[in-house]
């Protein structure tokens, strides 16, 4: 247990002393994962909405498929993105391998299914609740969708947070496609893996603590925004 207490103090020291190297790693982690969440939301939420509304053929099958993709192993995603972006791969000419962009692509692929599946679940639940009301108001499909997205906005935010959590905590994919290059593609998780492999366990654990603190901050920020909106509505 001494290890944990020691590492916790160590992580606080790291934060307070404000090592610029540490901050650049933290900022890169946030940039990569937040961009991935944004892109995955643009893909995932419409897909989820489509599936929630879906009365088309194969809708059930696609839903099962998307739900299964939630369990995609990050290493496999990393490997696929590597093979595609590699110089000898189909998109090699873009020169994206070992750049933050490659990491964003991998994380987007990883979390888009999570956001899509959770969005479908959420939107469907709200739809059940309002179905009769919509019918009595004679709303068009488009109007229904707008109303549903608005009513489901807080649970949808939770879906985005779930995606963000997976993205920022993920190490296998970004290690392969980013290469853990110092000052370029080194993020929190790959730093933790590197320090662990050097046997610097307390530093690794301290970095892990900082990662958890960041996750708490992001979640708290979203919760505060949510609450403010909620209050504003009721004033």
């Amino acid at each position, binding site marked *: 247990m001494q290890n944990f207490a020691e590492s916790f103090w160590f992580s606080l020291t790291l934060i307070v002393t404000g090592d610029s190297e540490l901050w650049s790693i933290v900022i890169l982690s946030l*940039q990569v994962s*937040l961009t991935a969440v944004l892109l995955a939301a643009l893909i995932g939420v419409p897909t989820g909405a489509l599936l929630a509304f879906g009365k088309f053929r194969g809708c059930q099958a696609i839903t099962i498929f998307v739900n299964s993709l939630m369990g995609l192993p990050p290493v496999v995603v990393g490997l696929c993105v590597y093979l595609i972006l590699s110089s000898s791969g189909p998109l090699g000419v873009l020169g994206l391998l*070992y750049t*933050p962009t490659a990491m964003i692509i991998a994380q987007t692929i990883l979390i888009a299914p999570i956001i899509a599946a959770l969005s479908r679940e959420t939107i469907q639940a709200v739809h059940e609740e309002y179905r009769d009301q919509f019918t009595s108001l004679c709303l068009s499909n488009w109007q229904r969708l707008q109303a549903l997205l608005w009513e489901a906005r807080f649970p949808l935010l939770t879906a985005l947070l779930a995606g963000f959590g997976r993205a920022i905590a993920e190490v296998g994919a970004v290690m392969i496609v980013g290469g853990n290059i*110092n000052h370029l593609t080194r993020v929190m998780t790959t730093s933790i893996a590197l320090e662990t*492999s*050097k046997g*610097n366990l307390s530093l690794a654990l301290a970095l892990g603590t900082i990662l958890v603190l960041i996750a708490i901050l992001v979640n708290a920020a979203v919760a505060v925004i949510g609450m403010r909106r909620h209050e504003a509505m009721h004033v």
Partner: protein
Amino acid sequence: MIVAKTLYFSTLFSLVLTLAAAGSEYIIIQSTTSTQNSGLLSAILPKFEAHSGIKARVVAVGTGQALRNAQNGDGDVLLVHARAAEDAFVSDGWGVQRFDVMYNDFVVVGPAEDPAKIFDMQNTTKALSQIAQKEALFVSRGDDSGTHKAEKRLWSETLVDTVSASGTWYRETGSGMGATLNMAASMEAYTLTDRASWLSFANKRNLVVLVQGDIRLFNQYGVIAVNPHKHPNVDAEGAQAFIDWLIGPEGQSAILNFRPNDTQLFFPNAQR
């Protein structure tokens, strides 16, 4: 909201920067982990960058993976340690030419109690046979890295069948040197490691060096430029500039002057 916006725009900005940076001068070095984990590369690369104006980006993986990545064209130059695989890489046309850079040695480490009684043995082959005979735990990298290749070479000189012993006293971790040392430390097992990784490893616990100094434990590092005829995107000039510097007087003295805690981790031995 302002925070979110700022983050969003800074992200876009950094993406643009990344794309813009693609045109500027840098080389990608596919390197073995020991040269990075020991701190050698972060000590000598700034000198190369100042000398040449070329930025060096290091992807540190096992030698096997480094060779495969380079074969895919995902790197300009290799810094690895597995002579036979390096020669094959060049003779198959993937690399231009191989040069000696530096050497150090492998050591067999294990628990201080030394259940197989191999301490101070001069013959690594005999020491390994004794570990097998006692069925003492031995952790192998099992990842096709330079150290793993060296370990397999050493086992091949014994009569031990590690394939059928795998999963019993012989355990293949399939991971890097650091992860393997962490496991050896917690399992109280023997393992083979390069000396640089060992000396810079911070979680030794009960592990000590037991066998060293055998000529069989010699560990040579080589540098190879990736063949631009195979992959036109390869920065042949940058790679050659790096090789010229590394095996030239400046690079060699930079390696010689890298002495963390007054210990020489790598000995330069380029031929020219």
